[in-house]
Protein backbone atom coordinates (compact mmCIF):
# COMPACT_ATOMS: atom_id res chain seq x y z
CA UNK A 1 0.00 0.00 0.00
CA UNK A 2 2.71 2.44 1.03
CA UNK A 3 4.62 1.63 -2.12
CA UNK A 4 1.74 2.44 -4.44
CA UNK A 5 1.24 5.79 -2.78
CA UNK A 6 4.90 6.55 -3.27
CA UNK A 7 4.94 5.50 -6.91
CA UNK A 8 1.77 7.48 -7.48
CA UNK A 9 3.47 10.51 -6.05
CA UNK A 10 6.49 9.91 -8.23
CA UNK A 11 4.39 9.63 -11.36
CA UNK A 12 2.56 12.79 -10.38
CA UNK A 13 5.88 14.59 -9.99
CA UNK A 14 7.09 13.48 -13.41
CA UNK A 15 3.82 14.51 -15.03
CA UNK A 16 4.05 17.93 -13.39
CA UNK A 17 7.59 18.35 -14.62
CA UNK A 18 6.72 17.41 -18.19
CA UNK A 19 3.71 19.72 -18.17
CA UNK A 20 5.84 22.60 -16.91
CA UNK A 21 8.52 21.98 -19.53
CA UNK A 22 5.87 21.85 -22.26
CA UNK A 23 4.32 25.14 -21.09
CA UNK A 24 7.70 26.88 -21.03
CA UNK A 25 8.40 25.57 -24.53
CA UNK A 26 5.03 26.78 -25.85
CA UNK A 27 5.56 30.23 -24.31
CA UNK A 28 9.08 30.60 -25.64
CA UNK A 29 8.58 29.19 -29.14
CA UNK A 30 7.00 32.26 -30.81
CA UNK A 31 9.43 34.56 -29.02
CA UNK A 32 12.45 32.66 -30.24
CA UNK A 33 11.12 31.93 -33.70
CA UNK A 34 11.01 35.60 -34.74
CA UNK A 35 14.62 36.09 -33.64
CA UNK A 36 15.63 32.86 -35.32
CA UNK A 37 13.95 33.91 -38.55
CA UNK A 38 15.64 37.31 -38.46
CA UNK A 39 19.01 35.63 -38.07
CA UNK A 40 18.20 33.10 -40.76
CA UNK A 41 17.16 35.79 -43.29
CA UNK A 42 20.28 37.80 -42.60
CA UNK A 43 22.63 34.87 -43.23
CA UNK A 44 21.10 33.54 -46.45
CA UNK A 45 21.52 34.47 -50.08
CA UNK A 46 18.52 36.09 -51.74
CA UNK A 47 17.71 32.92 -53.68
CA UNK A 48 17.15 31.11 -50.39
CA UNK A 49 15.25 34.02 -48.87
CA UNK A 50 12.65 34.06 -51.63
CA UNK A 51 12.42 30.29 -52.01
CA UNK A 52 9.20 28.34 -51.47
CA UNK A 53 9.00 26.36 -49.26
CA UNK A 54 11.13 28.67 -47.12
CA UNK A 55 14.68 27.61 -46.33
CA UNK A 56 15.11 27.45 -42.57
CA UNK A 57 18.75 26.49 -42.23
CA UNK A 58 20.97 28.15 -44.83
CA UNK A 59 22.89 25.64 -46.92
CA UNK A 60 25.56 28.23 -47.39
CA UNK A 61 26.06 30.92 -44.76
CA UNK A 62 26.90 34.37 -46.07
CA UNK A 63 27.81 37.65 -44.41
CA UNK A 64 27.25 39.59 -47.65
CA UNK A 65 24.02 41.06 -46.27
CA UNK A 66 25.83 42.69 -43.38
CA UNK A 67 28.57 43.96 -45.67
CA UNK A 68 25.93 45.47 -47.95
CA UNK A 69 24.28 47.35 -45.07
CA UNK A 70 27.56 49.02 -44.17
CA UNK A 71 28.57 49.68 -47.77
CA UNK A 72 25.35 51.25 -48.97
CA UNK A 73 24.53 53.41 -45.98
CA UNK A 74 26.64 55.42 -43.51
CA UNK A 75 25.80 53.07 -40.64
CA UNK A 76 28.61 54.31 -38.42
CA UNK A 77 27.32 57.86 -38.69
CA UNK A 78 23.82 56.74 -37.74
CA UNK A 79 25.26 54.73 -34.90
CA UNK A 80 27.12 57.79 -33.62
CA UNK A 81 23.94 59.89 -33.91
CA UNK A 82 22.06 57.33 -31.85
CA UNK A 83 24.82 57.25 -29.25
CA UNK A 84 24.79 61.06 -28.93
CA UNK A 85 21.00 61.30 -28.70
CA UNK A 86 20.49 58.41 -26.34
CA UNK A 87 23.58 59.12 -24.27
CA UNK A 88 22.75 62.75 -23.56
CA UNK A 89 19.04 62.09 -23.01
CA UNK A 90 19.89 59.36 -20.49
CA UNK A 91 22.53 61.44 -18.71
CA UNK A 92 20.31 64.47 -18.23
CA UNK A 93 17.45 62.23 -17.16
CA UNK A 94 19.69 60.77 -14.45
CA UNK A 95 20.83 64.20 -13.23
CA UNK A 96 17.25 65.42 -12.89
CA UNK A 97 15.45 62.18 -12.22
CA UNK A 98 17.46 60.57 -9.42
CA UNK A 99 17.04 63.49 -6.97
CA UNK A 100 13.39 63.83 -8.02
CA UNK A 101 12.75 60.15 -7.39
CA UNK A 102 14.42 60.51 -4.00
CA UNK A 103 12.38 63.56 -3.06
CA UNK A 104 9.09 62.02 -4.16
CA UNK A 105 9.81 58.76 -2.35
CA UNK A 106 10.88 60.43 0.90
CA UNK A 107 8.09 62.99 0.96
CA UNK A 108 5.59 60.39 -0.29
CA UNK A 109 4.44 63.00 -2.81
CA UNK A 110 2.63 60.74 -5.19
CA UNK A 111 0.74 63.55 -6.83
CA UNK A 112 4.07 64.68 -8.26
CA UNK A 113 4.54 61.25 -9.73
CA UNK A 114 1.16 61.61 -11.41
CA UNK A 115 2.52 64.59 -13.38
CA UNK A 116 5.13 62.27 -14.80
CA UNK A 117 2.48 59.73 -15.68
CA UNK A 118 0.83 62.49 -17.64
CA UNK A 119 3.87 62.79 -19.87
CA UNK A 120 3.67 59.07 -20.53
CA UNK A 121 0.02 59.40 -21.42
CA UNK A 122 0.47 62.20 -23.91
CA UNK A 123 0.86 60.71 -27.37
CA UNK A 124 4.41 61.38 -28.55
CA UNK A 125 3.10 62.75 -31.81
CA UNK A 126 1.39 65.61 -30.03
CA UNK A 127 4.71 67.10 -28.97
CA UNK A 128 5.98 67.06 -32.48
CA UNK A 129 4.05 69.81 -34.23
CA UNK A 130 4.73 72.55 -31.66
CA UNK A 131 8.30 71.47 -31.00
CA UNK A 132 9.05 71.29 -34.69
CA UNK A 133 7.92 74.90 -35.01
CA UNK A 134 9.94 75.93 -31.96
CA UNK A 135 13.12 74.24 -33.14
CA UNK A 136 12.75 75.81 -36.54
CA UNK A 137 12.61 79.25 -34.92
CA UNK A 138 15.68 78.39 -32.85
CA UNK A 139 17.49 77.13 -35.94
CA UNK A 140 18.17 73.73 -34.42
CA UNK A 141 16.54 71.63 -37.13
CA UNK A 142 19.20 69.57 -38.85
CA UNK A 143 21.22 68.94 -35.67
CA UNK A 144 20.85 66.02 -33.28
CA UNK A 145 19.89 68.27 -30.34
CA UNK A 146 16.14 68.51 -30.98
CA UNK A 147 16.04 64.72 -31.06
CA UNK A 148 18.04 64.44 -27.84
CA UNK A 149 15.84 67.00 -26.11
CA UNK A 150 12.60 65.28 -27.09
CA UNK A 151 14.00 61.92 -26.03
CA UNK A 152 14.02 63.26 -22.48
CA UNK A 153 10.25 62.96 -22.58
CA UNK A 154 10.91 59.22 -22.70
CA UNK A 155 13.92 58.85 -20.42
CA UNK A 156 13.00 61.16 -17.51
CA UNK A 157 9.74 59.43 -16.47
CA UNK A 158 11.45 56.04 -16.62
CA UNK A 159 14.31 57.12 -14.36
CA UNK A 160 11.99 58.80 -11.85
CA UNK A 161 9.64 55.80 -11.88
CA UNK A 162 12.42 53.32 -11.20
CA UNK A 163 14.08 55.52 -8.57
CA UNK A 164 10.83 56.07 -6.61
CA UNK A 165 10.42 52.32 -6.40
CA UNK A 166 14.03 51.91 -5.39
CA UNK A 167 14.21 54.62 -2.73
CA UNK A 168 10.93 53.49 -1.20
CA UNK A 169 12.36 50.07 -0.42
CA UNK A 170 15.65 51.51 0.86
CA UNK A 171 15.76 51.62 4.69
CA UNK A 172 15.95 55.21 5.91
CA UNK A 173 17.63 54.61 9.29
CA UNK A 174 21.06 55.44 7.88
CA UNK A 175 20.02 58.84 6.61
CA UNK A 176 18.24 59.59 9.86
CA UNK A 177 21.43 58.78 11.74
CA UNK A 178 23.34 61.12 9.43
CA UNK A 179 20.74 63.84 9.98
CA UNK A 180 21.07 63.49 13.75
CA UNK A 181 24.81 63.86 13.35
CA UNK A 182 24.18 67.21 11.71
CA UNK A 183 24.16 66.43 7.99
CA UNK A 184 21.93 68.55 5.78
CA UNK A 185 19.22 66.92 3.67
CA UNK A 186 21.42 67.29 0.62
CA UNK A 187 24.41 65.71 2.38
CA UNK A 188 22.26 62.83 3.60
CA UNK A 189 21.19 62.27 0.01
CA UNK A 190 24.58 62.81 -1.58
CA UNK A 191 26.75 60.80 0.83
CA UNK A 192 24.37 58.21 2.28
CA UNK A 193 21.42 57.48 0.01
CA UNK A 194 23.08 58.01 -3.36
CA UNK A 195 26.00 55.59 -2.96
CA UNK A 196 23.55 52.93 -1.75
CA UNK A 197 21.30 53.44 -4.74
CA UNK A 198 23.83 52.46 -7.41
CA UNK A 199 21.96 49.30 -8.44
CA UNK A 200 18.77 51.29 -8.90
CA UNK A 201 20.58 53.93 -10.94
CA UNK A 202 22.08 51.28 -13.20
CA UNK A 203 18.66 49.77 -13.89
CA UNK A 204 17.06 53.17 -14.45
CA UNK A 205 19.86 54.26 -16.76
CA UNK A 206 19.78 51.11 -18.85
CA UNK A 207 16.01 51.02 -19.19
CA UNK A 208 16.02 54.69 -20.18
CA UNK A 209 18.83 54.01 -22.64
CA UNK A 210 16.95 51.10 -24.23
CA UNK A 211 13.67 53.01 -24.65
CA UNK A 212 15.44 55.99 -26.09
CA UNK A 213 17.54 53.86 -28.44
CA UNK A 214 14.42 52.10 -29.69
CA UNK A 215 12.39 55.26 -30.20
CA UNK A 216 11.51 55.98 -33.79
CA UNK A 217 8.97 58.76 -33.97
CA UNK A 218 10.97 61.75 -32.72
CA UNK A 219 13.88 60.92 -34.94
CA UNK A 220 11.56 60.34 -37.89
CA UNK A 221 10.24 63.88 -37.69
CA UNK A 222 13.33 65.82 -36.62
CA UNK A 223 16.14 64.01 -38.39
CA UNK A 224 17.64 65.18 -41.62
CA UNK A 225 19.72 62.99 -43.93
CA UNK A 226 22.81 63.19 -41.75
CA UNK A 227 21.15 63.19 -38.34
CA UNK A 228 19.15 59.97 -38.61
CA UNK A 229 19.15 57.68 -35.62
CA UNK A 230 19.43 53.93 -36.15
CA UNK A 231 15.70 53.06 -36.13
CA UNK A 232 14.98 55.87 -38.60
CA UNK A 233 17.77 54.66 -40.85
CA UNK A 234 16.35 51.15 -40.90
CA UNK A 235 12.86 52.42 -41.64
CA UNK A 236 14.21 54.39 -44.57
CA UNK A 237 15.87 51.29 -45.96
CA UNK A 238 12.48 49.58 -45.96
CA UNK A 239 10.58 52.35 -47.69
CA UNK A 240 12.92 54.43 -49.79
CA UNK A 241 15.88 52.28 -50.63
CA UNK A 242 14.79 49.02 -52.18
CA UNK A 243 16.80 46.65 -50.09
CA UNK A 244 16.20 42.94 -50.44
CA UNK A 245 15.12 40.83 -47.46
CA UNK A 246 18.61 39.68 -46.51
CA UNK A 247 20.17 43.11 -46.01
CA UNK A 248 16.99 44.37 -44.32
CA UNK A 249 17.17 41.58 -41.75
CA UNK A 250 20.88 42.26 -41.30
CA UNK A 251 20.14 45.96 -40.68
CA UNK A 252 17.47 45.01 -38.13
CA UNK A 253 20.05 42.95 -36.26
CA UNK A 254 22.61 45.75 -36.32
CA UNK A 255 20.07 48.19 -34.85
CA UNK A 256 18.97 46.01 -31.98
CA UNK A 257 22.29 44.43 -31.12
CA UNK A 258 23.29 47.04 -28.49
CA UNK A 259 19.99 46.74 -26.60
CA UNK A 260 20.05 42.95 -26.76
CA UNK A 261 23.54 42.92 -25.26
CA UNK A 262 22.49 45.37 -22.52
CA UNK A 263 19.43 43.29 -21.74
CA UNK A 264 21.51 40.16 -21.33
CA UNK A 265 23.98 41.94 -19.06
CA UNK A 266 21.40 43.22 -16.60
CA UNK A 267 18.47 40.86 -17.12
CA UNK A 268 18.12 40.05 -13.44
CA UNK A 269 18.14 43.70 -12.37
CA UNK A 270 15.66 44.62 -15.09
CA UNK A 271 13.14 42.17 -13.72
CA UNK A 272 13.69 43.39 -10.17
CA UNK A 273 13.77 47.08 -11.03
CA UNK A 274 10.65 47.06 -13.19
CA UNK A 275 8.62 45.09 -10.71
CA UNK A 276 9.72 47.18 -7.71
CA UNK A 277 8.61 50.37 -9.44
CA UNK A 278 5.23 49.00 -10.31
CA UNK A 279 3.79 48.73 -6.86
CA UNK A 280 3.64 51.20 -4.08
Amino acid at each position, binding site marked *: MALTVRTKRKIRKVVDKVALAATVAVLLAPCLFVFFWMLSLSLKYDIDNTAWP*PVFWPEEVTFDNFAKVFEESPMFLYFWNSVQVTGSATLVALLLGVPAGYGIAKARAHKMAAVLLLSRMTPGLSYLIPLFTLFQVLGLIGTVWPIALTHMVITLPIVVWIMIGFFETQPHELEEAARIDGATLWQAFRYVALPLSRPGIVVGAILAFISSWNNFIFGAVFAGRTTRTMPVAVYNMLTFESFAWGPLAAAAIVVMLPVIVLTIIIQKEIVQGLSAGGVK
Partner: protein
Amino acid sequence: MAGADVTIAAGTRTAGERRLRPYLLFIWPALIVSSAVIIFPWIFTVWMSLNDWHIGSKQTFIGLDNYVNLMTNRRFLESIGHTIYFTILAVILPMVLGTVSALVFHKKFRGRGFFRTLFIMPMMATPVAVSLIWTMMFHPQLGVLNYLLSLVGLPPSQWVYAPGTVIPSLILVEIWLWTPFVMIIVLGGLASLPTEPYEAALIDGASQWQMFWKITYPLVAPFLVVALIMRTIDALKVFETIWVISNGGPGTASEVLNVYLYAQAFAYNQVGTASAVVVVFFGIIVALSLVLLWARQKAKWA
Protein backbone atom coordinates in the same frame (compact mmCIF):
# COMPACT_ATOMS: atom_id res chain seq x y z
CA MET B 1 4.09 56.33 16.75
CA ALA B 2 0.40 56.28 17.68
CA GLY B 3 0.62 59.97 18.60
CA ALA B 4 2.18 60.84 15.24
CA ASP B 5 -0.59 58.98 13.44
CA VAL B 6 -3.21 60.96 15.27
CA THR B 7 -1.67 64.30 14.34
CA ILE B 8 -1.41 63.25 10.71
CA ALA B 9 -5.04 62.22 10.75
CA ALA B 10 -6.03 65.49 12.39
CA GLY B 11 -4.39 67.64 9.74
CA THR B 12 -3.42 65.48 6.77
CA ARG B 13 -2.76 68.44 4.57
CA THR B 14 -0.35 70.32 6.83
CA ALA B 15 1.50 67.16 7.81
CA GLY B 16 1.85 66.18 4.15
CA GLU B 17 3.04 69.66 3.24
CA ARG B 18 5.51 69.76 6.09
CA ARG B 19 6.92 66.44 4.93
CA LEU B 20 7.14 67.63 1.36
CA ARG B 21 8.64 71.10 1.76
CA PRO B 22 12.26 70.17 2.51
CA TYR B 23 12.28 67.79 -0.45
CA LEU B 24 10.87 70.23 -2.99
CA LEU B 25 14.36 71.27 -4.05
CA PHE B 26 15.02 67.70 -5.11
CA ILE B 27 11.88 67.60 -7.21
CA TRP B 28 11.74 71.07 -8.80
CA PRO B 29 14.33 70.64 -11.55
CA ALA B 30 12.67 67.55 -12.98
CA LEU B 31 9.23 69.07 -12.55
CA ILE B 32 10.19 72.31 -14.30
CA VAL B 33 11.77 70.52 -17.23
CA SER B 34 8.91 68.10 -17.72
CA SER B 35 6.28 70.80 -17.43
CA ALA B 36 8.18 72.97 -19.90
CA VAL B 37 8.31 70.09 -22.34
CA ILE B 38 4.65 69.27 -21.74
CA ILE B 39 3.02 72.63 -21.15
CA PHE B 40 4.50 74.64 -24.01
CA PRO B 41 3.40 72.11 -26.63
CA TRP B 42 0.01 71.91 -24.97
CA ILE B 43 -0.75 75.61 -25.11
CA PHE B 44 0.49 75.67 -28.68
CA THR B 45 -1.59 72.64 -29.65
CA VAL B 46 -4.81 73.95 -28.15
CA TRP B 47 -4.27 77.30 -29.88
CA MET B 48 -3.50 75.63 -33.21
CA SER B 49 -6.61 73.48 -32.96
CA LEU B 50 -8.66 76.68 -33.07
CA ASN B 51 -7.02 77.80 -36.29
CA ASP B 52 -7.15 76.78 -39.89
CA TRP B 53 -3.51 76.33 -40.69
CA HIS B 54 -2.05 74.52 -43.63
CA ILE B 55 1.76 74.68 -43.53
CA GLY B 56 2.88 77.19 -46.11
CA SER B 57 -0.25 79.31 -46.02
CA LYS B 58 -1.48 81.86 -43.52
CA GLN B 59 -3.35 80.76 -40.43
CA THR B 60 -6.84 82.03 -39.68
CA PHE B 61 -8.75 81.79 -36.42
CA ILE B 62 -11.84 79.66 -36.93
CA GLY B 63 -12.91 78.81 -33.38
CA LEU B 64 -14.24 75.31 -32.93
CA ASP B 65 -14.68 74.57 -36.64
CA ASN B 66 -11.93 71.96 -36.66
CA TYR B 67 -13.74 70.01 -33.97
CA VAL B 68 -17.09 70.36 -35.69
CA ASN B 69 -15.59 69.09 -38.91
CA LEU B 70 -13.98 66.15 -37.13
CA MET B 71 -17.31 65.05 -35.71
CA THR B 72 -18.61 64.44 -39.23
CA ASN B 73 -15.33 63.22 -40.70
CA ARG B 74 -15.83 59.57 -41.53
CA ARG B 75 -12.15 58.73 -41.73
CA PHE B 76 -11.55 60.21 -38.28
CA LEU B 77 -14.51 58.42 -36.71
CA GLU B 78 -13.43 55.15 -38.29
CA SER B 79 -9.93 55.61 -36.91
CA ILE B 80 -11.45 55.89 -33.42
CA GLY B 81 -13.26 52.62 -34.08
CA HIS B 82 -10.01 50.97 -35.21
CA THR B 83 -8.24 52.29 -32.11
CA ILE B 84 -10.88 50.85 -29.79
CA TYR B 85 -10.88 47.48 -31.58
CA PHE B 86 -7.09 47.36 -31.52
CA THR B 87 -6.83 48.47 -27.89
CA ILE B 88 -9.31 45.93 -26.53
CA LEU B 89 -7.46 43.01 -28.11
CA ALA B 90 -3.98 44.46 -27.49
CA VAL B 91 -4.77 44.82 -23.79
CA ILE B 92 -6.70 41.64 -23.01
CA LEU B 93 -4.51 39.12 -24.83
CA PRO B 94 -1.12 40.25 -23.45
CA MET B 95 -2.69 40.56 -19.99
CA VAL B 96 -3.91 36.96 -20.04
CA LEU B 97 -0.76 35.54 -21.60
CA GLY B 98 1.51 37.69 -19.43
CA THR B 99 -0.20 36.57 -16.25
CA VAL B 100 0.01 32.92 -17.25
CA SER B 101 3.71 33.35 -18.10
CA ALA B 102 4.34 35.04 -14.77
CA LEU B 103 2.77 32.11 -12.93
CA VAL B 104 4.96 29.73 -14.93
CA PHE B 105 8.19 31.70 -14.43
CA HIS B 106 7.41 32.10 -10.73
CA LYS B 107 7.83 28.34 -10.28
CA LYS B 108 11.33 27.17 -9.51
CA PHE B 109 12.95 25.05 -12.20
CA ARG B 110 16.38 24.58 -13.65
CA GLY B 111 17.43 27.28 -16.12
CA ARG B 112 14.62 29.61 -15.06
CA GLY B 113 16.79 32.73 -15.20
CA PHE B 114 18.02 31.88 -18.68
CA PHE B 115 14.56 31.17 -20.09
CA ARG B 116 13.18 34.28 -18.46
CA THR B 117 15.86 36.39 -20.15
CA LEU B 118 14.92 34.88 -23.50
CA PHE B 119 11.30 35.60 -22.76
CA ILE B 120 11.79 39.33 -22.06
CA MET B 121 13.88 39.86 -25.20
CA PRO B 122 10.93 40.97 -27.38
CA MET B 123 10.05 43.97 -25.21
CA MET B 124 13.65 45.16 -25.36
CA ALA B 125 14.08 44.69 -29.10
CA THR B 126 13.76 47.77 -31.32
CA PRO B 127 10.08 47.86 -32.45
CA VAL B 128 10.86 49.25 -35.89
CA ALA B 129 13.37 46.48 -36.58
CA VAL B 130 11.01 43.83 -35.25
CA SER B 131 8.18 45.20 -37.38
CA LEU B 132 10.42 44.85 -40.41
CA ILE B 133 10.89 41.15 -39.72
CA TRP B 134 7.15 40.66 -39.17
CA THR B 135 6.42 42.42 -42.45
CA MET B 136 8.51 39.82 -44.24
CA MET B 137 6.91 37.01 -42.25
CA PHE B 138 3.42 38.25 -43.16
CA HIS B 139 4.15 38.19 -46.92
CA PRO B 140 1.22 36.26 -48.47
CA GLN B 141 3.27 34.43 -51.13
CA LEU B 142 6.74 34.05 -49.64
CA GLY B 143 6.15 34.66 -45.97
CA VAL B 144 7.13 32.00 -43.50
CA LEU B 145 3.85 32.31 -41.53
CA ASN B 146 1.76 30.94 -44.39
CA TYR B 147 4.22 28.09 -44.69
CA LEU B 148 3.81 27.33 -40.98
CA LEU B 149 0.02 27.39 -41.43
CA SER B 150 0.32 24.94 -44.31
CA LEU B 151 2.37 22.61 -42.10
CA VAL B 152 -0.55 22.23 -39.72
CA GLY B 153 -3.04 21.98 -42.57
CA LEU B 154 -4.53 25.48 -42.38
CA PRO B 155 -5.28 27.59 -45.47
CA PRO B 156 -2.98 30.56 -46.15
CA SER B 157 -4.00 33.98 -44.83
CA GLN B 158 -3.66 37.41 -46.42
CA TRP B 159 -2.46 38.73 -43.03
CA VAL B 160 -1.85 42.49 -43.24
CA TYR B 161 -2.75 42.61 -46.93
CA ALA B 162 -6.52 42.25 -46.44
CA PRO B 163 -8.81 44.69 -44.57
CA GLY B 164 -10.44 41.90 -42.56
CA THR B 165 -7.27 40.36 -41.18
CA VAL B 166 -4.98 43.35 -40.88
CA ILE B 167 -5.82 44.39 -37.30
CA PRO B 168 -5.76 40.85 -35.84
CA SER B 169 -2.39 40.33 -37.56
CA LEU B 170 -1.03 43.53 -36.06
CA ILE B 171 -2.32 42.35 -32.69
CA LEU B 172 -0.05 39.31 -33.04
CA VAL B 173 2.94 41.64 -33.22
CA GLU B 174 1.65 43.60 -30.24
CA ILE B 175 1.20 40.40 -28.20
CA TRP B 176 4.69 39.32 -29.14
CA LEU B 177 6.19 42.66 -28.10
CA TRP B 178 4.34 43.36 -24.86
CA THR B 179 3.43 40.09 -23.17
CA PRO B 180 6.84 40.17 -21.41
CA PHE B 181 6.04 43.61 -19.98
CA VAL B 182 2.90 42.31 -18.28
CA MET B 183 4.82 39.23 -17.19
CA ILE B 184 7.51 41.28 -15.43
CA ILE B 185 5.04 43.45 -13.52
CA VAL B 186 2.98 40.44 -12.38
CA LEU B 187 6.15 38.51 -11.55
CA GLY B 188 7.12 41.37 -9.23
CA GLY B 189 3.76 40.98 -7.54
CA LEU B 190 4.22 37.25 -7.12
CA ALA B 191 7.72 37.74 -5.71
CA SER B 192 6.41 40.09 -3.02
CA LEU B 193 3.86 37.57 -1.72
CA PRO B 194 4.29 36.57 1.91
CA THR B 195 4.60 32.83 2.57
CA GLU B 196 2.65 32.70 5.85
CA PRO B 197 -0.89 32.64 4.38
CA TYR B 198 0.09 29.68 2.20
CA GLU B 199 1.51 27.76 5.10
CA ALA B 200 -1.64 28.41 7.10
CA ALA B 201 -3.81 27.43 4.15
CA LEU B 202 -1.86 24.20 3.65
CA ILE B 203 -2.36 23.27 7.29
CA ASP B 204 -6.07 23.96 6.89
CA GLY B 205 -6.09 21.63 3.88
CA ALA B 206 -6.81 24.17 1.14
CA SER B 207 -6.51 23.06 -2.50
CA GLN B 208 -4.12 24.70 -5.00
CA TRP B 209 -7.05 26.29 -6.76
CA GLN B 210 -8.47 27.70 -3.54
CA MET B 211 -5.08 29.12 -2.59
CA PHE B 212 -4.81 30.81 -5.97
CA TRP B 213 -8.21 32.49 -5.82
CA LYS B 214 -8.27 33.30 -2.11
CA ILE B 215 -4.66 34.33 -1.51
CA THR B 216 -2.64 34.88 -4.69
CA TYR B 217 -5.23 36.69 -6.76
CA PRO B 218 -6.25 39.38 -4.21
CA LEU B 219 -2.62 40.10 -3.30
CA VAL B 220 -1.51 40.36 -6.94
CA ALA B 221 -4.55 42.38 -8.07
CA PRO B 222 -2.89 45.81 -7.56
CA PHE B 223 -0.04 44.71 -9.83
CA LEU B 224 -2.50 43.54 -12.45
CA VAL B 225 -4.14 46.96 -12.37
CA VAL B 226 -0.78 48.70 -12.85
CA ALA B 227 -0.06 46.45 -15.83
CA LEU B 228 -3.56 47.10 -17.15
CA ILE B 229 -3.18 50.89 -16.95
CA MET B 230 0.22 50.90 -18.65
CA ARG B 231 -0.88 48.48 -21.34
CA THR B 232 -4.04 50.48 -22.10
CA ILE B 233 -2.13 53.74 -22.45
CA ASP B 234 0.48 52.13 -24.69
CA ALA B 235 -2.09 50.32 -26.83
CA LEU B 236 -4.06 53.52 -27.40
CA LYS B 237 -0.84 55.23 -28.46
CA VAL B 238 0.25 52.48 -30.84
CA PHE B 239 2.04 53.86 -33.86
CA GLU B 240 5.37 52.42 -34.90
CA THR B 241 4.38 48.84 -35.59
CA ILE B 242 1.36 49.85 -37.65
CA TRP B 243 3.22 52.61 -39.45
CA VAL B 244 5.99 50.24 -40.53
CA ILE B 245 3.98 47.10 -41.23
CA SER B 246 0.73 48.25 -42.84
CA ASN B 247 1.04 52.05 -42.96
CA GLY B 248 -2.60 52.24 -41.92
CA GLY B 249 -3.69 50.17 -44.91
CA PRO B 250 -4.88 48.44 -46.90
CA GLY B 251 -6.84 51.58 -47.69
CA THR B 252 -7.49 52.92 -44.21
CA ALA B 253 -8.38 49.53 -42.68
CA SER B 254 -5.75 49.74 -39.92
CA GLU B 255 -5.60 53.49 -39.53
CA VAL B 256 -5.67 54.09 -35.76
CA LEU B 257 -5.83 57.57 -34.24
CA ASN B 258 -2.09 58.06 -34.03
CA VAL B 259 -1.58 57.05 -37.65
CA TYR B 260 -4.42 59.32 -38.78
CA LEU B 261 -2.83 62.11 -36.78
CA TYR B 262 0.56 61.61 -38.36
CA ALA B 263 -0.94 61.61 -41.85
CA GLN B 264 -2.85 64.83 -41.20
CA ALA B 265 0.14 66.62 -39.73
CA PHE B 266 3.07 65.46 -41.78
CA ALA B 267 1.61 64.13 -45.03
CA TYR B 268 -1.16 66.68 -45.61
CA ASN B 269 0.35 69.45 -43.44
CA GLN B 270 -3.07 70.14 -41.91
CA VAL B 271 -1.71 71.42 -38.62
CA GLY B 272 -5.03 72.83 -37.40
CA THR B 273 -6.95 69.60 -37.93
CA ALA B 274 -4.10 67.50 -36.53
CA SER B 275 -3.99 69.64 -33.37
CA ALA B 276 -7.71 69.15 -32.85
CA VAL B 277 -7.17 65.40 -33.20
CA VAL B 278 -4.44 65.58 -30.56
CA VAL B 279 -6.77 67.33 -28.12
CA VAL B 280 -9.55 64.78 -28.65
CA PHE B 281 -7.04 61.92 -28.45
CA PHE B 282 -5.56 63.15 -25.19
CA GLY B 283 -9.06 63.56 -23.78
CA ILE B 284 -9.79 59.91 -24.53
CA ILE B 285 -6.53 58.75 -22.92
CA VAL B 286 -7.03 60.82 -19.77
CA ALA B 287 -10.65 59.70 -19.39
CA LEU B 288 -9.72 56.05 -19.72
CA SER B 289 -6.76 56.38 -17.34
CA LEU B 290 -8.98 58.01 -14.73
CA VAL B 291 -11.42 55.12 -14.97
CA LEU B 292 -8.56 52.67 -14.53
CA LEU B 293 -7.00 54.60 -11.65
CA TRP B 294 -10.37 54.61 -9.96
CA ALA B 295 -10.49 50.85 -10.46
CA ARG B 296 -7.05 50.65 -8.89
CA GLN B 297 -8.21 52.47 -5.76
CA LYS B 298 -11.14 50.09 -5.51
CA ALA B 299 -8.84 47.09 -5.92
CA LYS B 300 -6.67 48.40 -3.10
CA TRP B 301 -9.55 48.60 -0.65
CA ALA B 302 -11.32 45.44 -1.72
